[in-house]
């Protein structure tokens, strides 16, 4: 099943075209990794999928992105419900400077999804889902910033799954973490794969190879605009890349 169907996506920051003609189908309940050198539009692409680019002035989208067949940029679709369905985890852990509980409860509260004892249940369930419950169950009232970075990132994942999204976008979620914390987040991703469609941007080739089912390779065209140079199963991309640039990149011949 295709969860997200992107066709001929162009994206502009003002007059600068950051993405050109990206066409890809993202498979439901799989992990898709996006790789490629810095500055070729991976983050930009990710932020198109939950319309976070709308918050930047002067940006423009052309082409279509369908979520379960519905155009997310059509006039009738609303950003708030889109962002509930498509959650995002950022590069640096960014829990709110509030308690652990309030962080996870933020989404359900704001969206008016649950109250009272249901809310506590939802928080516990989400923290368990993010493999964090055992570590924080005795300090739900503590400031989230007192957790380690790895725990903070898993808290951010718990915060996202608390609103029960369908897709989770992760933009280099492990780049601020140490190797052990990174492995825990990877384990978590594999567990989440059962329920969620996950798209992850990563600079770490081993990580892409370890966790993802599908992989997309971004590159710059001759006008310095980002393109999706190659897309396929992770196995195919890493063992028989069709594109010479992909091969050079994954074997480390580029930065």
């Amino acid at each position, binding site marked *: 099943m295709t969860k997200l169907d992107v066709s001929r996506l162009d994206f502009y920051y003002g007059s600068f075209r950051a993405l050109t003609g990206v066409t890809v189908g993202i498979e439901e309940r799989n992990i898709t990794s996006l790789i490629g050198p810095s500055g070729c539009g991976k983050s930009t692409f990710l932020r198109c999928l939950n319309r976070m680019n709308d918050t930047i002035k002067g940006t423009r989208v052309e082409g279509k992105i369908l979520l379960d067949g519905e155009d997310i940029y059509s006039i009738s679709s609303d950003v*708030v419900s889109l962002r509930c369905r498509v*959650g995002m985890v950022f590069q640096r852990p*960014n*829990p709110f*400077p509030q308690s652990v509980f309030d962080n996870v409860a933020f989404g359900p509260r704001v969206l008016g999804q649950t109250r009272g004892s249901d809310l506590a249940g939802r928080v516990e369930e989400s923290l368990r889902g993010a493999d964090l419950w055992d570590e924080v169950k005795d300090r739900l009232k503590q400031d989230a910033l007192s957790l380690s970075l790895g725990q903070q990132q898993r808290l951010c994942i718990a915060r996202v799954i608390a609103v029960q999204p369908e897709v989770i976008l992760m933009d280099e979620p492990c780049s601020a973490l140490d190797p052990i914390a990174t492995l825990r987040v990877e384990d978590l991703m594999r567990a989440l794969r059962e329920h969620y469609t996950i798209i992850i941007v990563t600079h770490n080739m081993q990580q892409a190879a370890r966790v993802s089912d599908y992989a997309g390779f971004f590159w710059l065209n001759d006008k310095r605009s980002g393109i999706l140079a190659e897309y396929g199963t992770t196995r195919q991309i890493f063992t028989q890349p069709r594109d010479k640039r992909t091969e050079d990149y994954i074997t480390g011949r580029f930065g």
Partner: protein
Amino acid sequence: MHNSRWSEFAVESLIRVLGFSTVGLVALIFVFLLREGLPVLSEVALPNFLGRAWYPTFGSFGILPLVLGSVLVTVTAIAIALPLGLATAVFVREVAPGWAREILKPMIEVLAGIPSVVLGFFGMTMVAPWVRQTLGTATGLTAITGSLILTYMALPTLISVAEDALDAVPKSYRDAGLAMGATQWQTIWRVIVPAARSGIVTAAMLAMGRAIGETMAVMMVTGNAARMPTEWDALLRPVRTMTATVAAEMGEVAKGSTHYHALFAIGIVLFVITFAINMTAARAIFAKRRRGGLR
């Protein structure tokens, strides 16, 4: 090489001397206040000094009505100014388009520069009649009139410090809030404002420190009756603040008299209150810095 090192040392010493002399100056003022004010304790019985009646002519030196007068006027002013100032800061920082911010910010700075006697004048001729007519008070010169003028004076400080606090909130919190499906307003009230809380408290404290020490405008509009402001409608009646008392009576007392000492004692009380308020504000700032540094 040698030369530059020497000038470095000279500049550093100079700055250190200046820094210490500022502290020294504050201490000196306090010592002076103590010297002129403390004798009142040997001249007036403590219950009298802490009493409810201020009639220096009849030997009553109770400062309670004056302290309560100051507190009433100031706290009311901040209670009005805080929501207004916070809303303005949020608007300027988070909502207003760039060009509106460019106009608003300097205008707010200009507000801070209006001399307090001008504000007092404005209070007497515009606010006091308005208070009398709208709130139906016997006179327009009431505690609430003073509070409104102080609100006006407190707003610029409050707005600009609160705005800095909002500005210091990392963009990543904003992004996280929006990405969770929160609206812009939900993100502001549930994420950004709470994250800036300690800065906002600091803003309120600094504004309060400024308001409680304000003399001229308050003296012109509060009616200056040294009565206990303890009725439920005390806000709608005249009061007298500590500052207004000192300013009004200092010119008429004989140096070295009990009344003279009592006025200085009021100065001590005011100094201590202001010092405490500013220290609280400073501690909030330092605590924030330390936490920021760890992240």
